[in-house]
């Protein structure tokens, strides 16, 4: 078999064309691989987010059950014992005098206060019960308990017509408020705490503001999360779980404002 120069030239051009075409195929394969990789990474991220959300939901359910059990046990057992003590003390003869009578009177006062505190604590732990009357009422009871400590002044403001949320959303919002109040009492050395609920069409804005020492948000809540800001991270994670957006504003010496915005999909009065 013999070939002319033209045929050899044509074959060379064909080969070069084939090489260029195959290089293009490789480029297209790279592009398709990158597309598949992006889809793969997105699926992994979604699975991870779903897993973390499910984990957090389970943790919250377990925590809620534990709190309810502790609340019920306190009310049913310790509450009963304290009530019996009160009955026993009341059955003591009236003829006591002097220091003994004074001590007995003080003991009865302490016992009454212990029973009242225990009831308050039991109700606070059993949030579902408390939330039956609605979120503003439940928060109001919580603020009453804080007010009784005499350490801080608390105010509650409700604007707009109250709309009921999904029970799970209300429960988590209530727990977030509890956590925020706890932070303000434990760390902020606040003198005033103001809670406001603002109901608008299809949304609820809940704000907890204190005039405490505040903190540098960047230090307490690093971008990657982590141990340091676990309380604040918890607030944000819980908010995300119920579709709410949590914003925390704080600066050293300027107090802290925590705002939660949650859409109300099926508002009910």
């Amino acid at each position, binding site marked *: *078999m*013999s*070939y002319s120069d033209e045929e*050899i030239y044509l*074959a*060379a051009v*064909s*080969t070069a064309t*084939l*090489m260029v075409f*195959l*290089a293009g*195929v*490789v480029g297209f*394969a*790279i592009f*398709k*691989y*990158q597309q*598949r*990789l992006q889809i*793969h*990474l997105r699926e992994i991220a979604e699975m991870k987010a779903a897993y973390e959300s499910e984990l957090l939901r389970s943790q919250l359910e377990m925590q809620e059950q534990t709190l309810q059990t502790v609340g019920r046990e306190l009310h049913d057992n310790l509450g009963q014992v304290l009530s019996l003590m009160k009955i026993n003390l009341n059955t003591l003869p009236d003829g006591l005098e002097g220091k003994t009578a004074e001590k007995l009177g003080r003991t009865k006062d302490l016992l009454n206060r212990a029973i009242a505190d225990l009831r308050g604590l039991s109700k606070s732990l059993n949030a579902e019960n408390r939330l039956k009357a609605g979120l503003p009422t439940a928060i109001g009871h919580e603020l009453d308990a804080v007010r009784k400590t005499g350490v801080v002044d608390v105010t509650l403001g409700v604007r707009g017509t109250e709309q009921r949320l999904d029970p799970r959303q209300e429960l988590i919002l209530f727990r977030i408020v509890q956590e925020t109040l706890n932070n303000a009492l434990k760390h902020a050395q606040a003198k005033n705490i103001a809670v406001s609920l603002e109901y608008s069409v299809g949304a609820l804005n809940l704000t907890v503001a204190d005039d405490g020492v505040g903190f540098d948000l960047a230090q307490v809540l690093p971008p990657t999360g982590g141990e340091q800001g676990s309380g604040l991270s918890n607030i944000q994670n819980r908010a995300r779980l119920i579709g709410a957006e949590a914003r925390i504003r704080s600066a050293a010496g300027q107090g802290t404002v925590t705002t939660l915005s949650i859409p109300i999909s099926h508002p009910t009065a």
Partner: protein
Amino acid sequence: MSIGKTIYLFLLGVCCALALNRRNSGPGLRVMPYLFFASFATEIIVLIFFNLLHKPYLWIYHLYIPIEFSLYSIYFLLVTQSAFQRRIIQLAVVAFILVSLSYSWKVNFEGFPGLIYNLEGLFLIWWSITQLFTINISMDVPIIRLPVFWICFGILLFHSGIFFVNFVYNHLSVNRVGLAKQLNQLIITNLNCLLYIFFVVAFLCPIRMKKSI
């Protein structure tokens, strides 16, 4: 021996060393040492017969090509996920060996088996393209960090590049010896260098991946 040929043999030696050192680096790569040693042995035999003994040497390619194709096929069998594709590869190996040996028998193992080499090239190009589009995504790794990408890319460039030379090599080596030598140097040797550079990169990929982890 030309500079290009020296570089090619050096790269082949590097590949042999890397393949021996890194034969457990990933699926498929364990077959590569056999491929490189077969290539190296073939080149040595060619050098001895052509440069020292001045005797015909093209017969060695009649033996080398079926061996090379079988080893490449084993590589693709190890890296391919599709059972259908694996079945095709298995059937192709048997068919190719039969066709190749029949052809060599017919031509008395003389001349360069360009047609057979092109048949091998077509199969390898097909499998490389299929493999490139079906690479299993199991990790967050860009494609250029995967050995299989460089091996398939190298095969695609090499076999498409030598396609035309294979067709006309026998004719040119008799009728236009100068042009045959030029093409051998310009295309076959340089594409061989490129192919083995890609293989070196393929063997370095797992090392880079381990370091980046």
